[in-house]
């Protein structure tokens, strides 16, 4: 929206609701954005350029700006590169991309069937079935996944019982539980944007493509997916960002070898007591995520305006 457009929208809003409501709404939105989003992020950004000083020295003569926190992420202090932390960052991003793709593969068919494959009543039931499990809180859900995927868990019991595999498989060590948990956690964030986009598609378009000789895969490729694209873009962005920033699921479901970058950040803030270092790591994660998102948008020719739809 252009600045002029925003001005017009505001003046219309004021005109419609009167100055009282107008000032309250604009004021609280501004307060929300500034106080709860912009200021803390700026403080975090600023902190990332400072030394980790005891409280007494903050604001004192030794409280200077430095790049040392960023350097610590990039270099190992012995003239080499800090492959350990960068590796965790890289793996976290790759894992988030993987989870996003998995969610997309799962959610596109579900969203399509919801929008075009079922009658109203059955679609509502399906939506309910998708939403209700999310009434259970995230931690409990993660532990439930441990119960399913643990070495004496449900999956192993069934697999062993049916003779599909001979010895218990450690799904947690293999990170199967982690990917399943993350994929499941953000399912709805992918389904609903795609559903919204696909639902607007006139069913006759699908039938017309069929009638012109198109096999099913091409109907999706040429007709449905182009319409779903803005939904896919916004769903994928949300799932990717939230997966890369997830903490509880990696904490509970991650195997011993898989460290999530957020766990590093958490360690710096909490156990390390080094807020500036943690802030620097968090800033790098944010920038990396934005970079990947912009790159993906460039590759798939999505404009930023489409995501908002």
């Amino acid at each position, binding site marked *: 929206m252009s600045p002029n457009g925003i001005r017009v929208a505001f003046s219309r809003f004021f005109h419609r609701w009167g100055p009282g409501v107008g000032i309250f709404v604009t004021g609280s939105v501004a307060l929300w954005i500034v106080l709860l989003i912009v200021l803390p992020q700026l403080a975090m950004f600023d902190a990332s350029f400072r030394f980790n000083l005891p409280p007494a020295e903050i604001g004192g003569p030794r409280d200077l700006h430095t790049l040392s926190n960023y350097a610590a992420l990039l270099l190992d202090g012995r003239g080499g590169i800090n492959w350990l932390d960068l590796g965790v960052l890289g793996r976290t991003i790759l894992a988030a991309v993987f989870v996003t793709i998995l969610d997309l593969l799962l959610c596109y068919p579900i969203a399509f069937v919801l929008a075009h494959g079922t009658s109203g009543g059955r679609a509502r039931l399906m939506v309910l079935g998708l939403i209700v499990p999310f009434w259970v809180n995230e931690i409990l859900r993660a532990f439930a996944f441990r119960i399913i995927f643990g070495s004496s868990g449900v999956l192993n019991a069934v697999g062993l019982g049916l003779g599909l595999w001979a010895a218990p498989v450690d799904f947690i060590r293999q990170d199967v539980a982690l990917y399943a948990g993350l994929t499941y956690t953000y399912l709805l964030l992918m389904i609903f944007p795609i559903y919204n986009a696909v639902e607007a598609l*006139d069913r*006759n*378009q699908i*039938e*017309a*493509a*069929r*009638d*012109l*000789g*198109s*096999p099913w895969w*091409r109907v999706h490729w*040429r*007709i449905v997916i*182009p*319409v779903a694209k803005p939904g896919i873009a916004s769903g994928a962005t949300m799932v990717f960002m939230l997966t890369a920033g997830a903490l509880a699921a990696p904490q509970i479901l991650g195997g011993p070898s898989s460290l999530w970058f957020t766990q590093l950040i958490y360690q710096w803030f909490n156990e390390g007591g080094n807020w500036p270092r943690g802030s620097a790591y968090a800033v790098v994660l944010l920038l990396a995520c934005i970079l990947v998102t912009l790159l993906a948008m460039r590759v798939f020719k999505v404009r930023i305006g489409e995501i908002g739809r």
Partner: protein
Amino acid sequence: MSRDVTLEHVTIRFGSHTAVDDAHLTIRSGEFFSFLGPSGCGKTTLLRCVSGFLEPTEGRVLIGGEDMRGVGPNRRPTALIFQNLALFPLMSVAENIAFALEVRGVGRQARRKRAVELLELIALPHVGDKKVYELSGGQRQRVAIARALAAEPQILLLDEPLSALDLKLRQHMRSELRAIQRRVGLTFIYITHDQGEALTMSDRVAVMSEGRIEQVDEPLAVYDHPKTSFVASFVGETNVLPATVTGRDGTDVTLQTDGGLIVQGFAVGRRQYRAGERCQVFVRPEQIKVAPPEPGPNRLAARVLAEEFEGNLRHVSLAVGGSVGGSGGAPAVGALAVGGQPLRMSVVNDGSLPPLQPDAALTVTFDPSVASVLPEGPLARA
């Protein structure tokens, strides 16, 4: 090779609702065939069954003698033009037209070339690179036809394709469609609720009511010799006279209308009527003529109720009192005798009939051979 479309006792049900009831007919290769009926009578359902989006609940659809059961819409030699056209809004006009070729793996160059040819066929040579929303309604209409033709179907199915256009354009597109059909020589199966479209364009028309096919005939025969009360009342303007049979001589039937008139008509389809049987007599407004006030068959004493002037035609509503020379005489002012409805008469405005004043008395008549006597049945809702 013959590409006849045969419907063999096709019945289509949705739950307990029968949308198409025992449709049984053959559409000949190269024919312009219309299904005509009011909205909701099952036309779209029948068309979807031919195109392969629906399987008949009972009966078979054959194309070129081949049973189409289990053959999907993408593998039938048909192309459907949807009521809302269903052009692809995210593609250019040329991409829309070439879609069927793209599906078959035809190369970009060849696709482009064919799209240009088809755009010329529909007389829109320069719109290939435009988006669909940049076209007018009539242009979209023609692009939809070109897109369907690109699939090289043997049978083109059209679902009320003109209903979204305004009147002028609709009339223009009628002759355009007919011309395209002649040029490409395909079978056109056309469905519409507009009798004007069906009668002007078609080689044959099937009139439908509530899922049943009431009559299949050439347009003139449908109009002149309706076989059921529904067809008589749905196609064209007509006067309906509910009546009871009083006597017959071969196909000539004598009846007494519920208004007490004695009239003569002919039994459609040589049906034999018994005296006392209930039936309906249908006479078209243009078949009613002004006559000298002398006794004779079908001479009715009438009084002018109102006159409507429509340029080439004059429409006169009449109250009818009785048969001239029989009982009655000119009806009282304000009286109606034809089942509560005024009798409608249409006269060509050629100066032969002097201006008519309201309440003027006159004698009208119609030839027994144009008065169709049909068994009592449901009428089309006006």
